[in-house]
C-alpha cells in the first residue's frame, strides 16, 4: 500500500466507524472493497492489518456499537471486508484470536440484530463467508459457528440475490470439501446420497456446477477417493433426471474407466453395464474392462486366443492389466475374485451385453481352475508366473467354481462340456481341494449336470454324460469316506439332488449301482457327525424312492436284512440329535405321499409306529414334522381340504376307503387323535399351531357326515373334555383312551379351535413385549443391584 493511502486510512476508518457521519454512497464502499481485494491478492493480509491497525479497530468498533446505531451499509461492508482479510489462513487465525470473526458471523452477531432484516446485511454476511471459505480452517468455522444452518434457511430468502448467493455458497462449500483431501470422500458420499434420493430438476443444475470439479479430480494420479467417485457417477447416471440430458456424464465415465486402476475400474464397469440407458460405445468399453483380466489369463496360458474382436481392442489397457495381475499374489487374487464375481452377477441379467462371450468365459473359468490346481500348461513366462501366484489358492478356486456354475445355462455351453467336466473332476479328485472348494465343485457339477437336456424329453443324456458319470462315482465314493464331515455332507447333498433329478435315467442308475455309493451312504447313517447322519437319511430316502438302495444281501450285515425302514425307525427312536430324527420323519412323509412300496405294504402300522416315536420326541420340530405326516395321511384317507374359493375348480372327491365312522375309529386306534390333541396343548407354539390346523381340517371333513348321531351318552364327552382340560393345564400323564367316533366329533365341536388358532397366531411373548410390560420392567429395575446389568453371559 502506498504511504499516502496508509496515511489517509485511519481517518477514513474513523468516519466509517462513527454512526453520526454519513458515508457517501454504496458505490464508494464497493470500490473500496475492490481495492482491498487487489491489495490482499497482491500481498499478505496479515501484514496489512498489522501495519494498519485502524482496520481491525474498525471491525471491532462496528461490533461494539449498539445494534440500532449501526448503519446497514457499513455493517455489510465490514462483513465483506472481514471475509476478504480472512481468506488468507494466517490472517483468519489472527482475526479469530480476537474472536472478531465469531462476533461478525456467529449466531450472536448481526444474525440476531435488527439490521438483519436489511437484505444488504444478509448479502454482505454471505459474501464475507464466501470469501473466507477458502481453506480448511474456514470450512471448520462455517460448520462450528452455526453458519451452515443459517445458510440453508437463506436459500429460501425473500431476496432473490440473497437466496442465490446462499445456494452458491453451499455449492462452493461442497466443491471446496472435494478439494481438501480428507473431506473428498465425505463430500462425494453426500453427493451420492443426494443424487440417489433426490430426483428434482435442480439436481441437474447442481451436477452442471460440480462436473468440472469431478473432471478435475480425475486428473490427479492416483485418483482420490476413487471408490466414492465411482458411486457418485453411477448414482448420477441412475437418476432419471439425467436419462435424456447429455451433460458430459458419459464422457466423464468413459474417461474414468480408462484411468482407474483395474481393480477400481471393475465395479464402475459393472455399474455401467447394469444401467438401463447408456450409450452403446460406453457399454462396450465397460465390458472390455470387465473382461480384460480373463483375456489376459487366456493370452498368457493358451496359444490360440478366443474371439479376435474382443481381444484386439483390449491390447491398449492390457499391459496395465498384466502388470497388476503379476505385481503381487494378493493383487492377482483380489482382481480375479472381483472380476469373476462381477461377471457372475451380470450373467443372469437381461441387460447383459450381447453377444455374450459364453465360450470365452467358460474357457477362462476352466483355465483359472487349472492354474489353481496346477494342471495348466503355461505358454509364456507370464503364464508361469500366474501359475505360481494362483497354485493352491482356494479363494480364487471358490470364486471360479461359483462362476462356472452360473455359466451352465448358455446356448454354446455344450461343446465345452468335456473340458468343464474334466476340470470339475480334477478339482473333486484333487487331494489339495479344501472342504469349501469341494462343496462348490459339487454345486457347480450339479448345475452342469442338471442343465443337460431334460432327461424326461430325451432318452440319452448326450455323449458326455455317461462317460462323466462313470468317472464321477469313484470320486464321489472317495469323498463319502473323507475324514472331514463337511466333505461327506456336501457329497451326500450332491447325491440327493442328483438322484432326485436323474434317478429314472438308465445311464445314471447303471453307473450308481455299479459303484459302492449306495452302500457307503447306508454306512453313513451311523456317522459320528449328526449333520452327516441327517444328510445320509435324506439321501437314502431319495435312493430308496427310486429303488436304488439295492444293497447286496450279505449275511454279515444284520441291519441290511432289517431293511431301510427298520434302520430309519432305529434312528428316529435312538439318535441323540434332532437333525437325523427330523430328516427321518421328513423322508417318511415323502414316502407316504409317494406311496413308497415299504409304506404301502401296511400304511396303518407304519403311521402308528412313527407317531408313537414322534410323540415322545423332545425336539418340537420332529413333532411338528410328525403332524405333517398325519396331515398327508388324513388327506389320503379323507380327501383334499375343501377349496375355500367358490370359483375354484372342484376336484373329484376322493372316496374314503370305508364309511366315515370306520375311518374315524381307525384314526383313534392308531393314536392319531390322541397325538393331535396332545399336540394342541404342546408348549412349543409351532406344534400347537399345526395341530390346530389339523383338527380344523378333521372337523371340516367330518362336519357334513350325516351317518353319525350325536352321542347319546353325554357323560363320555364330559370325561373327554375333562381330560383335555387337564392336558391344557399341563398334566398330560393321563391317556385319552380309545374314543368312539361320536365322542371324537363332539370333542372337536366343543373345542374353540378358531379361538386357539387366533391365540396361537400371536407370538408367545406378546404379553412380555407390550409397552405395559416394558414400563413395569423399567420401574422394577430401578431398585435392583447394578451388578446384574453388566453381568452378561
Amino acid at each position, binding site marked *: 500500500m502506498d504511504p499516502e493511502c496508509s496515511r489517509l486510512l485511519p481517518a477514513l476508518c474513523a468516519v466509517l466507524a462513527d454512526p453520526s457521519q454519513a458515508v457517501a454512497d454504496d458505490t464508494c464502499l464497493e470500490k473500496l472493497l475492490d481495492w482491498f481485494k487487489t491489495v490482499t491478492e497482491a500481498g499478505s493480509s496479515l501484514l496489512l492489518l498489522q501495519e494498519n491497525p485502524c482496520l481491525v479497530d474498525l471491525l471491532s468498533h462496528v461490533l461494539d456499537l449498539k445494534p440500532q446505531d449501526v448503519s446497514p451499509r457499513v455493517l455489510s461492508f465490514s462483513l465483506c471486508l472481514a471475509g476478504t482479510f480472512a481468506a488468507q489462513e494466517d490472517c483468519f487465525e489472527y482475526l479469530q484470536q480476537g474472536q472478531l470473526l465469531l462476533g461478525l458471523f456467529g449466531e450472536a452477531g448481526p444474525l440476531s440484530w435488527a439490521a438483519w432484516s436489511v437484505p444488504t446485511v444478509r448479502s454482505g454476511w454471505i459474501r464475507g463467508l464466501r470469501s473466507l471459505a477458502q481453506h480448511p480452517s474456514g470450512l471448520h468455522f462455517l460448520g462450528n459457528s452455526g453458519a451452515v444452518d443459517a445458510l440453508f434457511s437463506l436459500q429460501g430468502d425473500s431476496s432473490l440475490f440473497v437466496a442465490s448467493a446462499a445456494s452458491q455458497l453451499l455449492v462452493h462449500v461442497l466443491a471446496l470439501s472435494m478439494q481438501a483431501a480428507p473431506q473428498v470422500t465425505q463430500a462425494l458420499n453426500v453427493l451420492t446420497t443426494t443424487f440417489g434420493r433426490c430426483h428434482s430438476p435442480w439436481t441437474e443444475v447442481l451436477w452442471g456446477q460440480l462436473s468440472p470439479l469431478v473432471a478435475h479430480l480425475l486428473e490427479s494420479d492416483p485418483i482420490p477417493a476413487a*471408490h466414492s467417485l465411482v458411486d457418485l457417477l453411477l448414482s448420477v447416471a441412475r437418476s432419471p433426471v439425467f436419462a435424456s440430458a447429455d451433460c458430459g456424464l458419459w464422457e466423464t465415465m468413459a474417461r474414468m474407466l480408462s484411468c482407474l486402476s483395474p481393480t477400481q475400474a471393475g465395479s464402475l464397469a459393472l455399474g455401467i453395464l447394469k444401467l438401463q440407458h447408456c450409450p452403446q460405445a460406453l457399454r462396450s468399453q465397460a465390458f472390455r474392462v470387465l473382461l480384460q483380466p480373463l483375456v489376459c489369463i487366456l493370452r498368457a496360458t493358451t496359444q490360440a486366443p478366443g474371439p479376435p474382436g474382443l481381444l484386439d481392442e483390449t491390447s491398449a489397457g492390457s499391459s496395465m492389466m498384466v502388470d497388476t495381475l503379476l*505385481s*503381487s499374489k*494378493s493383487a492377482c487374487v*483380489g482382481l480375479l*475374485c*472381483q472380476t469373476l*464375481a462381477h461377471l457372475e452377477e451380470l450373467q443372469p441379467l437381461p441387460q447383459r451385453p450381447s453377444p455374450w462371450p459364453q465360450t470365452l468365459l467358460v474357457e477362462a473359468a476352466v483355465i483359472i481352475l487349472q492354474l489353481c490346481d496346477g494342471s495348466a500348461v503355461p505358454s509364456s513366462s507370464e503364464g508361469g508366473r500366474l501359475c505360481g501366484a494362483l497354485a493352491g489358492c482356494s*479363494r480364487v478356486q*471358490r470364486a471360479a467354481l461359483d462362476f462356472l456354475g452360473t455359466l451352465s445355462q448358455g446356448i454354446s455351453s455344450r461343446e465345452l462340456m468335456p473340458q468343464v467336466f474334466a476340470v470339475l473332476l480334477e478339482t473333486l479328485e484333487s487331494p489339495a481341494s479344501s*472342504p*469349501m472348494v469341494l*462343496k462348490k465343485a459339487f454345486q457347480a457339477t450339479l448345475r452342469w449336470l442338471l442343465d443337460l437336456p431334460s432327461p424326461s424329453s430325451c432318452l440319452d443324456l448326450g455323449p458326455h454324460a455317461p462317460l462323466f458319470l462313470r468317472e464321477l462315482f469313484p470320486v464321489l465314493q472317495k469323498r463319502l469316506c473323507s475324514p472331514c464331515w*463337511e466333505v461327506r*455332507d*456336501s457329497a451326500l447333498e450332491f447325491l440327493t439332488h442328483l438322484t432326485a433329478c436323474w434317478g429314472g435315467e438308465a445311464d445314471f442308475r447303471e453307473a450308481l449301482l455299479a459303484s459302492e455309493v449306495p452302500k457307503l451312504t447306508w454306512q453313513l447313517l451311523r456317522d459320528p457327525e449328526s*449333520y452327516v447322519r441327517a444328510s445320509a437319511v435324506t439321501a437314502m430316502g431319495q435312493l430308496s424312492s427310486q429303488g436304488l438302495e439295492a444293497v447286496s444281501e450279505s449275511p454279515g450285515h444284520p441291519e441290511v436284512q432289517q431293511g431301510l425302514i427298520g434302520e430309519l425307525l432305529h434312528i428316529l427312536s435312538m439318535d*441323540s*440329535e*434332532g437333525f437325523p430324527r*427330523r430328516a427321518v420323519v421328513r423322508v417318511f412323509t415323502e414316502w407316504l405321499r409317494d406311496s413308497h412300496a415299504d409304506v404301502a405294504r401296511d400304511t396303518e402300522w407304519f403311521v402308528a409306529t412313527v407317531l408313537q416315536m414322534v410323540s415322545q420326541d*423332545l425336539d*418340537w*420340530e420332529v413333532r411338528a414334522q410328525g403332524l405333517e405326516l398325519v396331515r398327508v395321511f388324513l388327506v389320503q384317507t379323507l380327501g383334499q381340504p375343501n377349496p375355500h374359493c367358490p370359483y375354484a375348480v372342484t376336484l373329484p372327491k376322493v372316496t374314503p376307503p370305508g364309511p366315515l365312522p370306520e375311518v374315524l375309529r381307525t384314526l383313534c386306534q392308531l393314536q392319531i387323535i390322541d397325538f393331535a390333541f396332545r399336540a394342541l396343548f404342546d*408348549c*412349543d*407354539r*409351532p406344534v400347537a*399351531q399345526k395341530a390346530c390346523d389339523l383338527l380344523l381340517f378333521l372337523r371340516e371333513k367330518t362336519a357334513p357326515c350325516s351317518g353319525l348321531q350325536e352321542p347319546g351318552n353325554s357323560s363320555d364327552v364330559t370325561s373327554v373334555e375333562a381330560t383335555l382340560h387337564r392336558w391344557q393345564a*399341563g*398334566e*398330560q*400323564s393321563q391317556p385319552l383312551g380309545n374314543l368312539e367316533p361320536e365322542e371324537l366329533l363332539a370333542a372337536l365341536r366343543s373345542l374353540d379351535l378358531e379361538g386357539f388358532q387366533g*391365540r396361537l*397366531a*400371536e*407370538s*408367545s*411373548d*406378546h*404379553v*412380555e*413385549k407390550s409397552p405395559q*410390560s*416394558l414400563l*413395569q*420392567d*423399567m420401574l*422394577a*429395575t430401578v*431398585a*435392583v*443391584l447394578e*451388578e*446384574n*446389568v*453388566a*453381568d*452378561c*453371559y
Partner: protein
Amino acid sequence: MPEIRVTPLGAGQDVGRSCILVSIAGKNVMLDCGMHMGFNDDRRFPDFSYITQNGRLTDFLDCVIISHFHLDHCGALPYFSEMVGYDGPIYMTHPTQAICPILLEDYRKIAVDKKGEANFFTSQMIKDCMKKVVAVHLHQTVQVDDELEIKAYYAGHVLGAAMFQIKVGSESVVYTGDYNMTPDRHLGAAWIDKCRPNLLITESTYATTIRDSKRCRERDFLKKVHETVERGGKVLIPVFALGRAQELCILLETFWERMNLKVPIYFSTGLTEKANHYYKLFITWTNQKIRKTFVQRNMFEFKHIKAFDRAFADNPGPMVVFATPGMLHAGQSLQIFRKWAGNEKNMVIMPGYCVQGTVGHKILSGQRKLEMEGRQVLEVKMQVEYMSFSAHADAKGIMQLVGQAEPESVLLVHGEAKKMEFLRQKIEQEFRVSCYMPANGETVTLPTSPSIPVGISLGLLKQEMAQGLLPEAKKPRLLHGTLIMKDSSFRLVSSEQALKELGLAEHQLRFTCRVHLQDTRKEQEMALRVYSHLKSTLKDHCVQHLPDGSVTVESILIQAAAHSEDPGIKVLLVSWTYQDEELGSFLTTLLKKGLPQTPS
C-alpha cells in the same frame, strides 16, 4: 499411510453383540459376529451396512474370527454368512466349532418357536455357515493368506474360548474376546506370551470390580440348594445348554457325593449327553485338575445327574432341575417354572444375566405377579435367587493381562462407558500407554511405523566378512551400502553393484583444502619434506611420492604450489574423497601444525 483402524459395530461401550472391525496393513478382519439378546428385530444383529458400502463383503473382508461360542459373540454368524452374503473363511477353535452350531440351533428354535419368525436363518444355513469354518489349535500359527496370520491363545471363560493375535508383517493386534484370569472348577486361567502387539483389544465387563472369592459364591449356592431340598422344595436352575451348566453340574455332583444326598438331579432336553460328550472330547481345554483326575474318573460322567422327562415335573418331593433356556423366555424352563412358581417351598436360581422382556428379568427385578398369555396372572411365591457365575476377568485380571502382553496401546470393548473410563485412566497411568474406548461406529486410528524388510546382497556381506570381523549378535556393526528399490522390494548392495544394476556412471566428489606454510624452499623440495614427514608419522598408511611431485596417502592427494603473491609462502593443496573424510581432515590438521625442521 501405515495405520491400524478399529471400528466396533457392536461391543463399543456396551455389552452384547460383539463385532469389531480391524484394519491392519491393508487387511480387514472381523472379530466376532454376535447378536443382542435384548432385541427381537434387526437391531439384534450388528449393522453390517457399514461394511457392505465397501463393495462385496467377501472381497473386502479377509477373514472373520470368532472368539468363543456365546451367542453375543457368534449369534449373527449364519445371518452374516448366508443372508448378508459373506463367503470367506471363518476361524475359531475346535471346541467352538463343535459347540457353536448347537447354540445357534437352540437359538433358532427358540426364535422360530416363540415368535414364529419366518425370515430367520434355517438349520441348513447354520450348517452351510459351519462348513465355512476353519478350526485352529492353540498356539498354532495359521496363515490366512501370504501376509495375514493368526494365532489362538487360551482364554478360560468357557470351553474353547480363545484370544487371537492377528499379525501382518511386523504389525499385530491381540483381541481377547471374553477371558478369565483365575481358574474355575473346569477351566484354567487365560494366558498370553509377551507378544508386544501394537494394540490389545480387551473386554472390560468387570472394569471396576474386584470380584469376591468364587468359593464364597459356590458355598452360598450349595447352601441354598441344600436348604430348599431339605425342606422338600424343588429347585429350578434355568441355564443355557453349554457353559455354566457344566460348571454347576460338577459343583452339585461333588457336593451330592460328599454329603451322600439322594435327592434326584435332572438335566433337561437331552442336551447333557451331547454337552458332556464335548467336554470329554476337548478334555485338553479344561483345567489341570480335571485333566489329572480324568484317568481315574471323568468329571463329566455324572453319577447323580439324570436326564429329565417332562412327566417328572409333577412328581412329588424335592428335586433339582437344570432346564433350558436360561432366561425363562420359552420352552421347558418356562414350563417348569409355571408349574412350580406357586409354591413358596420351591426356588429358582438364575445363574446369569437376563434381558428385558423375559420372565427371568421380571422375577429378578422383584416382580411377583406376572401376566401370562390369555390374561392369566401367575403369582410367583417360590423364592428367586440370582447368582453370577460368569467368568470374566476383573479389573485386577485385566491389568495383569496388559502387563503380560505389553502392548503399545490398549482398546477397551465389551463393557459400560462409565466403568471403562475408570479403567482407561488406570491403564494409562500404570502402563504409560494410550488407551481407547470407542463407541459403536466410532473409528480409532493408530499410526504405526512398520518395519520394511530389506534384503542384503551376498556380495556386500562377503565384503564385510573379508574385513575379518565375524558377526556377533550382541555387537551391532555399521554396514555401508546403497539402498536400491527395484521390483517393489528393497535391497542393500555395494555401491559398485548398485551402479551396475541401475546402469549409472560413478561421479566422484573431492574435497580440497589449502594449507599455507611459511617456507622459501622450492615446491619439489617442499613436497619431498611433506612425504618424509608423513612417511614417518603415518606408519600404517600407504604414503607415496609420485613422479609428478605430488604425494598420496591412500586416496588423498597433496600437491605443493607457490603462493601467487608472496614467494615466502608455500601452499599445500590437500584433496580427498568422501570415503576418506576422516583421514583427509586429520592430514590437514597435521600439516597445519607445520613441518618439522630438518637438519640442514
